């Protein structure tokens, strides 16, 4: 094949492979979203906001083994995936706040972030919309003879979409370097997963010959191990894997949804099982505090960057529809 578009980068290193690194990234995601949530409350987020608070371990663990040239497909609830794949908090915050410095010039908001240079091929407003693209990215890597892989994140609700079955079949047939990571946060918009999912998601690949595993999605190391095994297998030509990471979304479907459809006991039990606290327990408190302080700085800087950037005006609407002639 022709030369690669993006040269193969070294693994991203300690940021994702050490306990420190994982904790830090999870903390960054948590604080990023808490900050965005506050901004939303202040009327500063001109778009919908789907918070992943409580689910950080899935993104950080799911990206732990990835290189820059590996691809990730994300969903409507994707800040944590973006940050875990290397998105800059400042530009991401700017996007949420509708600023010209945002990744999509502040026109797209959180469902339309795509940063191809980082291998982040998109959050998505269409449930399941990223699954065919992930299949194509994995095919592209295979066809180019690269040993890169694609990780496709999706919610348990997306398993109801036809593209999921199509993709399992194609990925299995072609032994694509594709890891399906179902982030089962128990709710699908305003209804519980029981309305949406028959049987067991992690077993959906069995009849295609795809290995499946269910992991504790609030344990970043467990997720990293499961996805890491799958990534290693995929890089070696061993084909796809389906990982179901069981977790919980602490907040409503979108910022503003009070989530009255579930009871407090359930929420509280899951809050007590905080993946961030669990990840932090591996660190010594002083180290953790130092990291927290670092993150705080980074988030403040990100917010300041966003706030100091110009609000995107109507002149940006027409840009980026076709290649410049």
């Amino acid at each position, binding site marked *: 094949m022709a030369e690669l578009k993006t040269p193969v980068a070294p693994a991203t290193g300690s940021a994702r492979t050490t306990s420190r690194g994982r904790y830090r990234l999870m903390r960054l995601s948590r604080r990023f979203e808490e900050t965005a949530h506050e901004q939303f409350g202040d009327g500063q987020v*001109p*778009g*919908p906001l789907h918070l992943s608070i409580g689910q950080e371990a899935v993104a950080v663990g799911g990206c732990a083994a990835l290189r820059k040239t590996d691809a990730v497909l994300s969903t409507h609830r994707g800040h944590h995936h973006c940050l875990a794949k290397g998105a800059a908090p400042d530009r991401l915050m700017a996007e949420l706040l*509708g600023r010209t410095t945002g990744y999509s010039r*502040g*026109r*797209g*908001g959180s*469902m*339309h972030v795509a940063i191809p240079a980082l291998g982040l091929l998109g959050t*998505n*407003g*269409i*449930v*399941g*919309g990223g699954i065919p693209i992930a299949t194509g990215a994995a095919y592209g890597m295979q066809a180019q003879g690269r040993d890169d892989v694609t990780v496709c994140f999706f919610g348990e*609700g*997306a398993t*109801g*979409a*036809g593209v999921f079955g199509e993709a399992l079949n194609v990925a299995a047939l072609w032994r694509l370097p594709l890891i399906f990571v179902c982030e089962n946060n128990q709710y*699908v*918009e*305003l*209804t519980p997963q029981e*309305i*949406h*999912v028959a049987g067991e998601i992690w077993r959906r690949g069995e009849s295609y010959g795809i290995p499946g595993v269910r992991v504790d999605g609030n344990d970043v190391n467990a997720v990293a191990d499961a996805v890491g095994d799958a990534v290693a297998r995929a890089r070696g030509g061993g084909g796809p894997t389906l990982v179901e990471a069981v977790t919980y979304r602490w907040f409503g479907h979108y910022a503003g949804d009070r989530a009255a*459809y579930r009871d407090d006991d359930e929420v509280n039990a899951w809050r007590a099982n905080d993946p961030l606290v669990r990840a932090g327990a591996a660190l010594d408190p002083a180290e953790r505090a130092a990291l927290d302080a670092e993150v705080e700085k980074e988030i403040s800087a990100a917010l300041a960057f966003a706030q100091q950037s110009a609000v*995107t*005006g*109507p002149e*940006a*609407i*027409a840009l980026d*529809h076709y290649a410049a002639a």
Partner: protein
Amino acid sequence: MTAVETPTRSLKFWQGINQALVEEMERDERVVLVGEDVGRPGGPYGVTRGLRDRFGDLRVRDTPISEAVLVGLGVGGAAVGLRPVVEIMFFDFAMIAMDQIVNQAAKYRYFSGASMPLTIRTMCGAGGPNGAQHSQNFEAWYCTVPGLKVVMPSNAADAKGLLKSAIRDDDPVLFIETLGLLPARREVPQEDDFLLPLGVADTRRAGSDVTVVAIGRLVDRALAAAERLEQEDGISVEVIDPRTLAPLDAETILASVRRTGRLVVAQEATSPFSFASEVFALAVESCLSELKAPPVRVASPFVNVPTPVPLAEARAPGVDDVVAAVRTTMREA
């Protein structure tokens, strides 16, 4: 359209829809409602609230995120005796069910000779901070499909009367609601059985200088523009809301254009290959010699819908755009 003697009540658009569903489900046990979040949650915007409690969870059914099978539930359900109402949350998602709508539902009568009493409800438009994949206006696509009817009401009363008729219709009807209109109020007749016929345009305002054909969210804007033009310019604007896009009531539109000689079409969709294109085509085919000035399209620019509401609103055509378009038609030739 409302007879003077009928008692009315001020309802929001969504309430008109809700009333229509309640009444038709009360009236006919074959009417069922399936869709994502339509049941216990009462719809993502509350349009279907109360229905599940009233009619039970076999008749008001929350589905998984499976739009193709969702429309299939309607097609197959209708084929075995139901009169299903299928809700596709956002119009943009109807694409995922396109085969079931176009190749299956719309062709069922042609293949079998049998009825296909299916109503597909969905919600279009850039009326919220939802972005490029939740705000599109592709109503023109569906108007190209033989066997399908397409309805797009602009207010609570029409929404109610037309939805009731759609549900009773023996052909598949795509019923397009408009997000930006959900909270808009209008007086709605509260007679026992308020039905409006499909395929009949409503002349919302009589006028003699310019015909403005407007749909969806642009109807109210066109009416506001007409007021302004009357006052500021003394221009008499006729505003027609076709309400049903397929089959289109061309007669009403063309009769008006013949009288006024001037035409503006106003829509939230982008311009190329749109509803406006078809109305212009009909006008030039049938009224060329009566046209006093080139018609003008009032439409969104040919770009994606941005997420922030101020940008989405900057992109959407407004009252000013209609006013400007009408003035243009008055200036020309």
